[in-house]
């Protein structure tokens, strides 16, 4: 499987198809049993363990059940990816609020994660993945627990990221969400029993994620977006 910059891949599959594991492998959160995973032409197997966190900073990952640190607010949780990159606190706060605004969850900024509903947690998780404008977005079932309106808003945000040059790989069992994404231009891939179907190349034995944009270009583009 390959995901290029500016490309939207929609993984469709039923229960236990392997969607979550595939995304975790692509996001350097799980080691594959065999094969190779390359991000920007870097084979993850050749990287030292201490380098993996730096790979993950380039990946915006939304879990099926987003987890948060309960002792800090939603806004601070959304700022965490930016704190990992040691971004200035003021700039990180602005970026986090902007990300929450994109998914329509600005009002949740001062709330504690424990007080949020399932749909609100999912929106906050998506905002956290978007806050750092990563070149690769991996989303596991982003439309679960969301209303039709919220699902539409999330889809438009994802297409906006694609237009900005990010590669988006989204896994979902929601047929309506998949259909809407495909209508918007996403490439559809079906996953069954850990195997990709319907794509030009079967999933095993390799996966490659290509994302473009130098660090300095993206950093200047980020800062120019500030009011």
């Amino acid at each position, binding site marked *: 499987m390959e995901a290029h910059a500016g490309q939207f891949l929609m993984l469709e599959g039923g229960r236990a198809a392997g969607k979550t594991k595939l995304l975790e492998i692509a*996001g350097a*959160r*799980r*080691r594959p*049993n065999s094969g190779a995973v390359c991000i*920007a032409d*870097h084979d993850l197997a050749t*990287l030292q*363990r*201490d*380098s*993996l*966190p*730096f*790979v*993950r*900073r*380039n990946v915006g*990952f939304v879990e099926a059940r987003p*987890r*948060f*640190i309960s*002792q*800090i607010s939603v806004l*601070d949780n959304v700022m*965490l*990816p930016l*704190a*990992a*990159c*040691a*971004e200035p*606190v003021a700039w990180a706060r602005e970026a986090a609020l902007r990300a929450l605004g994109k998914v329509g969850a600005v009002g949740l900024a001062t709330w504690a994660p424990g007080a949020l509903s399932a749909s609100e947690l999912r929106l906050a998780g998506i905002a*956290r993945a978007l806050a750092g404008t990563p*070149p690769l977005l991996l989303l596991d079932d982003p439309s679960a627990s969301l209303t039709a309106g919220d699902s539409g808003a999330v889809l438009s945000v994802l297409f906006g990221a694609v237009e900005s040059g990010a590669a988006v790989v989204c896994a979902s069992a929601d047929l309506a969400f998949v259909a809407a994404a495909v209508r918007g231009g996403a490439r559809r891939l079906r996953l069954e029993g850990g195997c990709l179907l319907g794509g030009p190349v079967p999933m095993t034995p390799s996966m490659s994620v290509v*994302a*473009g*944009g*130098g*660090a300095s270009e*993206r950093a200047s583009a980020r800062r120019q977006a500030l009011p």
Partner: protein
Amino acid sequence: MRGLSPRPSIALRGAWALRLLDLGCRRRRLAVTLGCCAFAVVTLTILAAIAFRATWVQARSVPTGDGAELVAFLRDDLPVASRDALTAALVRLPEVARVRLLGGDEALSRMRRDLGDRASVLDGVEEGFLPATLEIALQPGRQGADRADAIAWRLRRMEGITDVDLLRTADDERLVRAEVTSRRAGRIGIGLALAVAALALCLAALALRRPSSDARLLSGLGFTTAAIAVPGAILGGMCAVAGALIGTCVGVLALRVGFATGWLTSFPSGRLPVAASSMVGSLLLVVLLGASLGWWGWRPSGRGMDELESAG
């Protein structure tokens, strides 16, 4: 694409940012940790005061009029040669400074002098009324109020000695009782203090441990091992030092109060009775406490990341 090679400066700055978040969300836990460390140090300081009191009491020498601290009564039929040999044997004891033989006649004369106007009660007393005695003075230096007891016990088992009398005043008896009490209190205090220190260490470690789920979350977001674990270690060390300083201040205050109320006998020079070795030991204890807390804060973070990366 952000750089994939680790840069220490960014890693440390990320750790600094996370530390700020830590301080914001863990205030209550930090307060508990600080309190536990301070309580442990206060307890240990009070223990040190108890132990010092026992040491100070032990250092007091037993005062006597002419320096003799024990009187050994000799058997009436003890030959002169045996008496001389016994005297020579006592002089060779390391605790004994000098031994003076006092014959029965000389002892009777001294008693007449001591009785003064009432010496007439001894008129008509036959010769040999009082036995010969050995007046024993102990070596000066680090004295022990109950050291004479130990020597008396040994003397009573020597051939030729019928009884041993300790020349003690009421103050000396009080010192002996105080020393014994202080030693017992010190031993109990040591056990209690170690238990409190262990409890405080466990509570502080629990307060500072980052749950492994949080460690996995942060690792997934791109935080390095150092960024996740170092704040816990730094905070643990800071809490240990701060707690030790607070505990030391309270402990010194307790010592002052002890001197003012007389529970701790006044130190002659007027200075705080803190030995250099005690201060070095306290400093090492603080360092050990801080290192232990930091290790406890580090380990679960590392374990969480191992679980994340080894899942398959």
